[in-house]
């Protein structure tokens, strides 16, 4: 499937920004399920710095911004040819040992409720069945509802609320998977919104669990499925913050307001 992605963000600042730095992980991953046909990133008034592929296989690109500037438009556009691999991240080049993804973070620290949820799944299942079962349980435990959680909501908090968005589903699934000894990570990317008529946003997130023999396998607990040709993967991390597509700081600037528009459309080859 050929997907066209248009991701425009405008950062508006209360005061002129004197200087800023942004580190972007918004370039589609390279693996058998994705072929990048073209990809462009443009930040008005910014200088493109060094780029490199990190140990997790993600492309990282640094930008520096010279002020004074009160509005920073970030335009990301491109086309990707996708193939359904039933969620398996086949042919992805990375060097980080999967055991690193057993480390917990503040956002994925288990509490009793998360431990109970992890333990509620059968003890005699194979690794792959266990992963599917955990994903299903998380989908049941967290109702999809926007506005009840925020960017800083932890897995424990989301489970207590019992509702949230894709970030919460992913972080809860990561936490319970690690609790059961499966290395797990947070993945950010895009989702073609017409898939099965779901209503989620085009900027999407899910989890990847490491299953011996198969390697990394994606699980989208929010949609009760594994990533397919409707998904475009860009980066990963230990939690939402670690996998953030954009990390940045600005000097001066004051209050920041974002206008974001993301579209993922299917186009004819």
């Amino acid at each position, binding site marked *: 499937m050929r997907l066209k992605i248009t991701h425009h963000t405008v950062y508006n600042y209360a005061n002129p920004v004197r*200087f800023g*730095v942004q*580190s972007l992980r918004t370039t589609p991953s390279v693996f058998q399920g994705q072929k990048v046909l073209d990809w462009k990133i443009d930040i008005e008034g910014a*200088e*493109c*710095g*060094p*780029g*490199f592929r*990190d*140990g*997790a296989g993600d492309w*990282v690109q*640094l930008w*520096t911004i010279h002020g004074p500037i009160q509005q920073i438009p970030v335009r990301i556009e491109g086309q990707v040819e996708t193939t359904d691999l039933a969620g398996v991240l086949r042919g992805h080049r990375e*060097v*980080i*040992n999967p*055991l*690193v993804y*057993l*480390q917990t973070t503040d956002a994925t620290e288990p509490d009793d409720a998360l431990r109970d949820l992890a333990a509620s799944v059968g003890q005699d299942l194979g690794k792959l069945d266990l992963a599917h079962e955990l994903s299903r349980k998380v989908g049941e435990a967290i109702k999809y509802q926007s506005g009840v959680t925020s960017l800083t909501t932890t897995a424990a908090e989301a489970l207590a609320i019992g509702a949230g968005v894709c970030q919460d589903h992913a972080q809860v699934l990561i936490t319970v998977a690690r609790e059961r000894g499966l290395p797990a990570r947070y993945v950010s990317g895009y989702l073609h919104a017409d898939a099965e008529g779901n209503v989620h946003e085009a900027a999407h997130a899910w989890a990847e669990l490491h299953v011996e023999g198969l390697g990394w396998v994606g699980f989208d607990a929010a949609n009760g499925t594994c990533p397919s040709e409707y998904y475009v993967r860009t980066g990963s991390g*230990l939690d939402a*913050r670690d996998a953030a597509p954009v*990390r*940045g*700081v600005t000097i001066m600037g004051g209050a920041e307001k974002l206008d974001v528009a993301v579209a993922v459309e299917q186009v004819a080859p």
Partner: protein
Amino acid sequence: MYYNEMFDGEKVREAYTSLSDWVDHMPSEIRQMKQAEAEALFRRIGITFAVYGEGGDPDRLIPFDMMPRVFTQREWLRLERGIKQRAKALNAFLRDVYGRGEIVRAGRIPARLVYQNEAYEKAVVGFVPPRGVYSHIIGIDLVRTGRDEFFVLEDNCRTPSGVSYMLENREIMMRMFPDLFRGNRIEPVDGYPDLLRRTLESVAPAKCQGRPRVVILTPGHFNSAYYEHSFLANLMGVELVEGADLFVEGEFVYMRTTEGPKRVDVIYRRLDDAFIDPLCFRRDSMLGVPGLMDVYRSGGVSICSAPGAGVADDKAIYTFVPEMVRFYLGEEPILKNVDTWTLWKQDDYKYVMDNLADLVVKEVHGSGGYGMLVGPRSTKKQIEEFRKLIEKNPSNYIAQPTLSLSTCPTFVDEGIAPRHVDLRPFCLCGERIELVPGGLTRVALKEGSLVVNSSQGGGVKDTWVLSE
């Protein structure tokens, strides 16, 4: 029972023959006068040590003992070979675990201890810094228990401090007792700043053209080692900067100066990993440089020590350093490790809990003499309190036998008496592996005490290596 470095029974050992004479002929009023003079000199140059969490005078002087600690050339050469060997193995280990992890694949170190270690830095996996060196300044803490018996207590691969004391102790001794240095052939240590600068310059990134610009990055004047940061910057002739003095632009890091921005090639940081780049690590860090890690990873700047170097020096990994020497160098380790019980193993746990009163127990990530129990020097109550801490989180602790640390004669109120000592030499790793002869000798000034940390009542001595 303790090895006395100066006396073999009544007989004075070879290293101390000339010093023995010097001590015997020093009247006590001269000694007191000189001790006061030394203290005044230390105060004047401003070398003080702030002790965390102890309150009192933040600019307290670290006590200086005028009686030098001496090694013969033969003793030193063996130590030097052992230290260099260890430094080489530690860097080989770091290069390996941030690459293919052969030592783990070979089953010589448990994967969990490496990859789930909180000091293991995911952000630098797959990146090989210039010359494959991760830890450029390694402080190796040694204790002696016999004539040829030296043990490594711990390795410090991140940002070991104390080298300024090594340099100042010598400076002050030479100023106060010039005759001693005329009468003895003592290896100099004052080449250290030059050697350090050359080491740092030798790991400049490939993109650097011309002579590399080196800076020292400090957390600021409230840091307890700030004196050392400014002292070293001064002696090396490089800038001392704080995070706010540096910024990233395009592919490089620059330093703000009155003559405009200047490109920086090598950063000797005296700042923990967590604080060097808010985009990559702790986002609330005001001490670091946003974007620094991206420039580092793409080869625009070198960071010494490399982020992630700490995985080689925690106390759990320590037990495997002899294995590293065998695995990477195919040699037998020259320096021995202290026997160590790891409390996450059931058998070890039981043994340690049954023998707390005889052992030293330390936190895996602790340092500076904090969070440790010295069994034989603790009250029953202290031991029971510590037992509760261990029960809560056994994998956070290791235990070692109480070592019979060697003693050196030390000036005390009553004259001269043996006190326990350790040694921290500073090994430099860049194009070559080098170290100046000697290091920092710390001495436990309290009678019978085995804790030499300056935060726990320890002092320092000048350390001599005699020339042939």
